[in-house]
């Protein structure tokens, strides 16, 4: 199986804009073309669109609007981890020899239908994500003696880091008191503990090893992929640990022949503040219940190792674009072009993208 590299990308600012989904898709694709002077339209074998939008045939639409006539064109939807699922599909097309050059474009509108999983009736009247997040938070705090003040640090850190991300939704840094006094959604969740739905697009170009050098001298290789789906419904979940993440991480690290201690920089799926320590524990960065210690230590010394672009809390969460935006961040980090967000000596990076309260997870390992 040949290597698969990431050779270009394009991303839009994340906003509350009322733009049509097709416009959002086109905008980041145009930026990708602007960044890829050697890319000709007839080289693109596949166009994959990642979104939860209800519009149909978006891959063919994006292809037509971009003047591409690909062999393979379709949409990929898996709620919040649609983006990395689309990247895994692109990888598979290339590794199998069905394609050499694949464009993946993710987009979402602020009013995405992907925020609510209508099927999951076991959640009763409590289908909005703030309810599973409240139950996760309560359970995590109870199990590991963590306080609201501890968890507020996640939001403070990620909004702080987002101020160095020109595409982030967040426009300001917040204090611990700002987070603790922000609008109360439930007894266990405040507004600033949440990532916010928004409008945004992110595109990425993947190629087989032979094609990489045409587009860049500095390809980033996907060396590990792990995925796991435990269930669709929230009520089958563990409440203070992400089992799908643990299994996906273990597979991805095994494939890349690395261990979590070798990871220099990571984007983790902080849909809500409690998700960041839980993810760090489930990914193997630290022991169960110790995620907040790691976060506090990094925050205290302004180390951007975890969620340098501000994560979902700081950047905003345009569902179908999120996994691709996370991947672009790690690519920029490994190419040493992340400007004020740059983590020192970043050689190996990790992307963690999950869906529906961690019922499904994708983990990617990227390397120079």
């Amino acid at each position, binding site marked *: 199986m040949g290597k698969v590299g990431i050779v270009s990308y394009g991303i839009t600012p994340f906003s509350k804009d009322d733009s049509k989904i097709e416009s959002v898709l086109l905008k980041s694709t145009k930026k990708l073309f602007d960044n890829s002077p050697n890319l000709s339209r007839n080289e693109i074998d596949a166009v994959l669109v990642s979104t939860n939008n209800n519009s149909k045939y978006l891959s063919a639409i994006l292809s037509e609007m971009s003047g591409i006539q690909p062999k393979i064109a379709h949409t990929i939807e898996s709620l919040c981890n649609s983006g990395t699922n689309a990247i895994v599909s692109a990888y598979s097309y290339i590794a199998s020899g069905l394609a050499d050059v694949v464009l993946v474009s993710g987009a979402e509108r602020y009013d995405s239908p992907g925020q609510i999983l*209508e099927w*999951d*009736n*076991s*959640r*009763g*009247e*409590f*289908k909005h994500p703030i*309810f599973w997040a*409240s*139950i996760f*938070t*309560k*359970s995590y705090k*109870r199990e590991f003696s963590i306080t609201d003040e501890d968890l507020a640090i996640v939001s403070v850190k990620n909004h702080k880091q987002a101020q160095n991300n020109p595409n982030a939704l967040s426009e300001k840094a917040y204090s611990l008191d700002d987070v603790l006094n922000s609008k109360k*959604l*439930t*007894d*266990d*969740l405040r507004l600033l503990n949440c990532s916010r739905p928004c409008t945004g697009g992110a595109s990425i170009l993947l190629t087989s090893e032979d094609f990489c050098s045409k587009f860049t001298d500095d390809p980033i290789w996907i060396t590990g992929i792990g995925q796991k789906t435990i269930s669709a*419904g*929230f*009520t*089958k979940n563990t*409440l203070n640990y992400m089992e799908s993440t643990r299994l996906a991480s273990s597979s991805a690290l095994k494939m890349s022949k690395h261990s979590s201690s070798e990871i220099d920089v990571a984007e983790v799926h902080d849909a809500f503040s409690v998700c960041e320590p839980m993810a760090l524990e489930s990914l193997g960065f630290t022991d169960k219940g110790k995620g907040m210690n790691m976060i506090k230590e990094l925050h205290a010394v302004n180390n951007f190792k975890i969620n340098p672009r501000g994560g979902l809390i700081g950047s905003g969460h345009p569902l179908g674009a999120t996994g691709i935006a996370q991947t672009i961040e790690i690519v920029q980090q490994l190419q040493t072009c992340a400007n004020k967000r740059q983590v020192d000596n970043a050689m190996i990076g990790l992307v963690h993208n999950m869906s529906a309260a961690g019922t499904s997870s994708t983990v990617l390992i990227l390397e120079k």
Partner: protein
Amino acid sequence: MTFEVELRKGNFQVAECINCKKIVWPPSDFCNQCFNEINWRKCANDGKIIEFSKQYDYYFCLVEFENAIKVIGKISSGIPNKDQHVRIQRCGMTNDNYFFEFSLI
């Protein structure tokens, strides 16, 4: 599906496989372990609070029945505790959404 017809009448039914006797949750017309037919029966009325939180002036909690079925619903009155037992006081459907209300035991 029988489950929803009964739930609309306020009855909480369980799907149990006729072959392997496993409870199928969420309810389905076939067993998710062996794809055999299922049998409908009344759910045990006694459940246990797995976790809870509060919005406005009501508590919502994740409750487990028969070690197999978990649903989220409201507490009708009182302050819940983890592992406390509850009964289904009211259940049904509003439009296409299920709802459950529990009373503390």
